[in-house]
């Protein structure tokens, strides 16, 4: 944790986060790429990870790997201790009242949503029931509900996109009337829109609906408190917050999780198995069938420690100012040649995902030439095809910012976009 308690940590206390010092902790960002520094602007798809995370995972495998919750020998006890410590850290990070029972490890947010749709949804939704989603959702919070709706003949209602790329809320009460669930993103992976969740949660609860929040793009970037938000379920994923792939978290209120049937069946999730039946395990293991991703949980714990050492307030402040800077630079440099699909940073907080159309060029062509300048951006539909249709585009180019990005990265992006314009002139 040297750089966290050293340069980056010290900088955070005085004048905000120092992205150059942070970068020194990230081997991939420090390695030469194509003769220069990699400009990584795709953290909304997946972040990079600091060596503290890699070392924590290596240390686990090198010193104490064994299966968890089984062996009585020392390294198995230690593996179990580290795995469960990760659960508590994840719970503390989001303000869960009872981390020991309310934090379920999943593969990612997609699995977290599928767990809720399959287990809570099948136990609580009947033909004709309505659920409310939004048209800015990632496919992860759309397709599981489309599948359940087909199976159970559910009515799907959608909050639409409104002014300044924020949700249109004028018909919120009408949509929530009689609905059983509100499934909503906390921050759009395409638009950068940050949803003001508290009033929505209050309205949903007034209407008798439970709330599932997709926080994949929020937990990595800002402080999150599930108690303050009032959400019933919330999902986030490790690899977008400096941790490894293959580890995600579902937070659920204990009463809800307790009443839900298991999701996947197998080892670990049972208390007793007979030839004619089984008794499920207690929370949270009831929802964790099979050997879990142990090293990944330990890596996630290291990522959480890293982010907490810097401070998520500092991360948010850094991203807010860098996002405003980047949007301003792009608009100044390219004027009408660029269309940014996302809220104006001057009108309120937004996330660091900046989606845009550049001239009349296809995003794949833009991204391909940016790659030749070592600038990594995403080009495509960002797993949000209904939103693409709403925006009237097939795809967008997206640059997304995180704690290791700085104004130099924005300059590199602007310069590389000039090269794109020249190349296709």
């Amino acid at each position, binding site marked *: 944790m040297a750089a966290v308690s050293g340069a980056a940590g010290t900088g955070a206390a005085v004048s905000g986060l120092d992205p150059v010092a942070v970068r020194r902790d990230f081997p991939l960002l420090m390695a030469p790429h194509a*003769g220069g520094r990699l400009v990584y602007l795709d953290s909304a798809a997946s972040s990079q990870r600091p060596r503290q995370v890699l070392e924590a995972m290596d240390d686990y495998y090198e010193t104490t790997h064994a299966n968890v919750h089984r062996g009585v020998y020392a390294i198995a006890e230690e593996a179990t201790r580290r795995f469960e410590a990760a659960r508590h850290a994840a719970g503390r990070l989001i303000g869960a009242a009872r981390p020991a029972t309310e934090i379920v490890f999943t593969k990612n947010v997609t699995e977290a949503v599928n767990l809720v749709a399959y287990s809570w949804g099948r136990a609580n939704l009947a033909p004709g029931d309505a659920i409310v989603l939004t048209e800015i959702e990632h496919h992860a919070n759309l397709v599981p509900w489309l599948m359940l709706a087909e199976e159970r003949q559910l009515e799907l209602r959608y909050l639409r996109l409104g002014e300044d790329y924020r949700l249109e809320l004028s018909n919120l009460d009408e949509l929530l009337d009689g609905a059983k669930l509100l499934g909503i993103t906390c921050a759009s992976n395409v638009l950068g829109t940050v949803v003001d969740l508290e009033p929505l949660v209050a309205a949903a609860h007034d209407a008798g609906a439970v709330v599932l929040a997709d926080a994949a793009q929020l937990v990595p970037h800002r402080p999150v408190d599930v108690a303050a938000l009032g959400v019933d379920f919330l999902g986030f994923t490790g690899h977008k917050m400096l941790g490894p792939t293959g580890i995600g978290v579902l937070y659920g209120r204990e009463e809800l999780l307790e009443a839900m049937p298991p999701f996947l069946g197998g080892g670990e999730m049972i208390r007793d198995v007979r030839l004619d039946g089984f008794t499920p395990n207690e929370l949270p293991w009831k929802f964790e069938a099979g050997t879990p991703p142990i090293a990944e949980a330990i890596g996630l714990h290291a990522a959480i420690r890293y982010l907490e050492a810097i401070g998520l307030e500092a991360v948010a402040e850094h991203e807010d100012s860098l996002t405003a800077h980047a949007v301003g630079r792009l608009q100044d440099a390219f004027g009408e040649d660029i269309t940014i699909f996302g809220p104006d940073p001057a009108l309120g907080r937004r996330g660091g995902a900046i989606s845009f159309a550049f001239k009349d060029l*296809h995003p794949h*062509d833009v991204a391909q030439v940016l*790659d030749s300048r070592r600038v990594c951006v995403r080009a495509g539909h960002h797993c949000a095809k209904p939103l693409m249709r709403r925006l009237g585009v097939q*795809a967008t180019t997206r640059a997304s910012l995180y704690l290791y990005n700085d104004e130099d990265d924005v300059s590199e992006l602007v310069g590389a976009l000039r090269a794109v314009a020249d190349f296709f002139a």
Partner: protein
Amino acid sequence: MSGLGDVYRENLEDLYREIILDHYRSPRNRGELATPPAHRAEGFNPLCGDEVVVYAAVEDGVVTDVRISGQGCSISQSSASMMSAAVKGQPVAEARRLLRAFKSMMSIHESSLGGEAGGVSRARGGEGAVEADEADEPAPVDVESLGELAALQGVVKFPVRIKCATLSWNTLAQVLAEAEAGGAGTGAEAVG
């Protein structure tokens, strides 16, 4: 790693040869044909949303006219333009030979990707499509016989873009199958 930059730039110039950019900026045979008598098929690339519509008029075994509409990236659009120029006025047999040779040129990486980028094998659109699949198995590469189409061979260094280049050709296979089957040719779909 320091030499990678030059390789990247060379590859980029390989990908976007001048003739490709020319077809992208000034696409040939843009437009539509009345169906019937012409045949029509649509191709989609689900990864990037590219779509291409190919119209072909076939008389006495000759592709007498070709028109292209749709939208997409420079590679898919220029490949469609170059295809239209290459097959227009050619006998169907020659169009099929070009199709096989082009697919063969593009299949170097398709095979190494375990079929992920395979276009023809995943084409669908009725019985005609099955016929096209069998008829259009990649032939040994004969790059010289491809003329200016050979300019697209740099695409194989960018596996994700292979689908962009083969999209219009897979769609052409659908149109030719439709024409041979004698159908009205309005509903075929290819997935690039």
